[in-house]
């Protein structure tokens, strides 16, 4: 096997980690430079993969396969499809920014920090690339360990407690998933083709589990992913971990690791256990709605900046969960784009909160006041990010939430109606944050606060650009996920045949000049209550 671009994506940060580990620990600048170079190179490869990715193809692209442990059917199998290609790009995009923003926060033990960060990047990329259940599990755990150290070694006063809570909580979920993986493997022995951990191979034939067994396996996977996202009520590690980590680590926790949970639901739970996904879909939609309102309401009461943003992040993750289990093409596409948006916007919020903390050392929002008149450029950027976070149209957040709610409204109208109230809650807590920190009388002891430096401008500029680019022209992202999402939903709906567009006979879509994207409408639509044209008769 010749290593392809995906192996390169894993090898570059790993090699960077090795290089940093070998470097002189006293040369801080050089260490950061090595780390940054490795991350930048990774980003270039990821961008190349993203640009070369063929939209309209449902299956895996850039596949790489090599024997790993053939005796038990483990393979080194990597690939990207519409679910993962943009997430890969997001990971590679956020890491250099996080490293750049760490300059003011990580002053000690820079060498292990850079090494750990690069190991974490390898783990995250591997999680999104792996197409073998065991390989996935290895990467899944491989990102947990560096994250534990990032919290425990560089965090704030409550770091040990938070790190252990985080580790045990997520580990508990992982163990359940490991058991489920083994159960799937053992079960596959009775199926034609024999035992394998290879995901496409497993999906190509009946899994052989039904009924309550399927439900149990679904739950074992889902709990692991739900803890990572996190889904209410499995979220209580989050505020502690988000607030105790250094802000740049929170960028990665909220921006990227949470996505691994949502991605796992789409990659494994939905296609492996379609019946359970359908039957348990309403339950998970309900949890999503609770999470949206509950997280938002609690965020509204918080005085600690990072706890406020942490609960807000949880609230936004609820939208992603809602979209996934709407089991509707529009909503799932919205969820995928919302994963990117959440990574960019929540990531940016924590980057900015970190820069502010570096300058003042003040964690509570009521210790600020009138900051907007002291550091106008910083405040303008924050305002833009806040607006994207509360889903203002023409920013990225709107595209995601709009598509999620629109799709959910078709299949689960009640959930969509309640969730839409969440957009008001988001305004309440985010504007409370802006109001306490940036508005109000100027705190005299904050005079002399420094505005964004040129280096910091360079860090936040890409984030702001992505916010507007996604908000105004999301098609490149939507195109890349369309075919995979349609195929996935067809699988969940139990039909592999694509429903012809004519099934909507006399559908009003026909009169719009813009034809719908290739692939037609998934059966999930026709199966939804009422269907798209169903309301007209009433």
């Amino acid at each position, binding site marked *: 096997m010749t290593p392809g671009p995906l192996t390169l994506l894993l090898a570059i940060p790993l090699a960077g980690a090795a290089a940093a580990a070998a470097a002189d620990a006293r040369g801080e600048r050089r260490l950061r430079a090595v780390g940054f170079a490795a991350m930048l190179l990774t980003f270039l490869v990821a961008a190349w993969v993203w640009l070369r990715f063929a939209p309209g193809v449902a299956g895996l692209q850039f596949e790489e396969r090599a024997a790993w442990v053939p005796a038990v059917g483990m393979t080194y199998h990597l690939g990207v499809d519409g679910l993962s290609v943009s997430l890969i790009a997001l990971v590679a995009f956020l890491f250099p920014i996080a490293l750049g923003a760490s300059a003011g926060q990580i002053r000690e033990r820079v060498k292990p920090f850079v090494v750990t960060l690069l190991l974490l990047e390898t783990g995250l990329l591997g999680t999104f690339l792996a197409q073998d259940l065991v390989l996935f599990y290895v990467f899944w755990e491989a990102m947990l360990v560096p994250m534990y150290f990032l919290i425990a070694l560089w965090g704030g006063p409550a770091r040990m407690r938070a790190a252990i809570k985080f580790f045990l909580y997520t580990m508990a979920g992982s163990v359940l998933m490991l058991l489920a993986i083994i159960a799937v493997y053992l079960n596959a022995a009775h199926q034609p083709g024999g035992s394998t951990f290879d995901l496409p191979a497993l999906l190509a034939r009946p899994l052989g589990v039904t009924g309550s067994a399927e439900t149990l396996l679904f739950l074992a996977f889902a709990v692991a992913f739900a803890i990572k996202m996190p889904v209410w009520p499995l979220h209580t590690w989050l505020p502690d971990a988000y607030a105790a980590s250094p802000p740049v680590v929170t960028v990665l926790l909220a921006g990227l690791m949470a996505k691994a949970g949502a991605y796992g639901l789409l990659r494994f739970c939905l296609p492996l256990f379609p019946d359970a996904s359908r039957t348990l879909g309403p339950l998970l939609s309900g949890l999503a709605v609770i999470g949206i309102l509950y997280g938002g309401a609690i965020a509204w009461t918080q005085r600690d900046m990072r706890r406020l943003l942490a609960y807000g992040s949880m609230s936004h993750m609820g939208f992603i969960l809602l979209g996934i289990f709407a089991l509707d093409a529009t909503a799932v596409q919205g969820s995928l784009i919302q994963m990117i948006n959440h990574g960019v916007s929540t990531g940016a919020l924590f980057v900015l909160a970190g820069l502010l903390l570096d300058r003042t050392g003040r964690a509570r929002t009521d210790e600020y006041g009138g900051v907007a008149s002291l550091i106008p450029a910083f405040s303008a950027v924050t305002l833009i990010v806040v607006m994207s976070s509360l889903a203002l*149209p*023409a920013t990225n957040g709107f595209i995601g939430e709009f598509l999620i709610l*629109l799709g959910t409204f078709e299949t689960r109208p009640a959930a969509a109606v309640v969730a*839409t109230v969440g*957009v*008001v809650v988001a305004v309440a807590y985010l504007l409370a944050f802006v109001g306490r920190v940036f508005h109000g009388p100027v705190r005299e002891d904050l005079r002399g606060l420094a505005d964004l430096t040129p280096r910091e401008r360079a860090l936040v500029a890409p984030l702001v650009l992505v916010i507007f680019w996604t908000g105004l022209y999301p098609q490149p992202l939507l195109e890349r996920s369309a075919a995979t999402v349609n195929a996935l939903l067809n699988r969940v709906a139990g039909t592999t045949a694509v429903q012809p567009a004519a099934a909507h006979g006399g559908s009003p879509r026909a009169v719009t*000049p813009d034809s719908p994207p290739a692939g037609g409408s998934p059966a999930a639509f026709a199966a939804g209550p009422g269907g*798209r044209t169903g*309301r007209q008769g009433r």
Partner: protein
Amino acid sequence: MTYAVWIPLLPLLGWVANGVAGGRWGRRGVATVACGTVVAAFAVGLAVLASLSSLPAGARHVEIDLYRWMAAGPITVPMRLLVDPLSAVMVLVVTGVGALIHIYSAGYMADDDAFARYFAYLNLFTASMLTLVLAGNLVVMFIGWEGVGLCSYLLIAFWFTRPAAAAAGVKAFIVTRLGDVGFLLGIFLAFGVFGTADFGVMTRDAAARLPLGGTAATALCLLLFLGACGKSAQLPLYMWLPDAMEGPTPVSALIHAATMVTAGVFMIVRMHAVYLRAPLAMDVVAVTGAVTAIFAAASALVEPDLKRVLAYSTISQLGYMFLAVGVGAWGAGIFHLTSHAFFEALLFLAAGSVMHALGGTTDMRRMGGLARPLPWTAATFGIGALALAGIPPFAGFFSKDQILSAAFHRGDVALWAVGLAAAGLTAVYIVRAFVLTFLTPAGPGPRPDRRGPTTPQREPAAGHAAPHEAPPIMGLPIQALAALTVLGGALGLSFTQPGALDRFLAPVVAAGGPDPAGGGEGTLIAVSVTVALAGVAAGWLIYGTGTLRGSSAAVRAWLSHQFYVEDFFNAVVAAPARGLAWAFDLLDREGVDGAVMSIGRMIGWGGGRLRRVQSGYLRQYAAILLIGVIVLLAYWVSR
């Protein structure tokens, strides 16, 4: 007609330029860029009007597709603009009045530290508003809809170091967002019904897809109307607008009088084909409008703050517009929207002139006798006041009369009577405001402002000692608006046949409007003019000469608390929401996390117990081993 794209794009470029580099080219440069882009947009709007007029009436519906914005699943949303007579009229109102207010602002804000930020926001607002009126579907409209909301928030909270201003901005954003939940759900429902939210398609297919009076049509219309209530400050979501007066006065004129707050009316006219399928929803719109009109007029009667009086008058006049579209008088609604934009902006700018002269005072109890030092301001405010009161021949008379007569002819005599009563109250409160500001002898010295001391940034200071007229850069826009207020009635000047505006709008709203040529028009006009004059006379007798006296304390309390609507809202919505949030917070720490942590503690406790097994005593291990062997042997033997 693709060049119509430049109408929103020009102010948007102004925003980018002033926002990014506004600090570099000085105040003159900032003002030139900001005003220039809006004036240029107005010019493009005129060109669009000309080329639209050259088309045959049936072809005056030009869709401009910029690109495919979103396509996911079976949903496609193009970035589409729609140029037709309705959007052309709105573009001219927004850019025309907008340009005048931009120019006025250059004088009004001349001494403000954040001059560039102010104009950047104002340009962004104009661009958003133009996107709203030019949108080709509900989703693109929502870009503008939320964009103007954002700018409203930013500009209300413009002097954000004052807590009252910051709080007012947040209140405006949250209350309008409450309405926007309805708007969003309306969009989703539109997709459910039509498979699209395109205005052209919805207008064409409404009759086919929505049974008359059906649930879908009613729900769709009421949901969208909820959004309109928030944006246009109708009951019960009006309470943000009086507080919005914390913003600079030109902002109040542009956003909170002339343009943004009329977005709800415009949206309903844009969706009129759908509303015609839901008579119940239209009744709700009309009743809400009429009740709001009289409610806000009554609230204005006792308000001591000049700007807040004007805010209530805006709410009240918006109520008339909703009354108009609720009875299907689309053209009258847009006519009143236009004439209101002229006279309400005029009133606000004149009030701004007063504040400029008095160093930022808005409390009428501290004013008085200003007609002598400010003759131009008094005269132009007077023109606006007469137009608001509905005195002929000013613009407000014609448009308000059209609405009342439409309501009467549709048989809604009750609504007509409410509108008429509100018109009488309007005359009373605006005469009161005029008298207190310009005529009565100056108040008993400066009183402490009820919002606390004015900070230097509050309003441009000019010193209370010697009030003087504003510079020409502020005076000229006021005079231009006064001229429009005097002449604007000509747009609808006709009692027996549709006026110029109606005829121009006819291709858009051809269906459904009541026949304007009903009988007894002369009587109706006589009645409304009599009521308006009676209101003026009453106002004069009460506040001018003091002849009429007497009011009960109870009535006064109800009026000064705006009938306790806001207190009720706070008690029923805001306070429980806050309580719920705190309850969730407690539940999260003690309940959900408590459960998790107690699981952890239980495992720790169990481990501690289990640890005793590992005592390190060999004899204990040997004993356990022995027991195990015995158990196994017993098992084998018994098998």
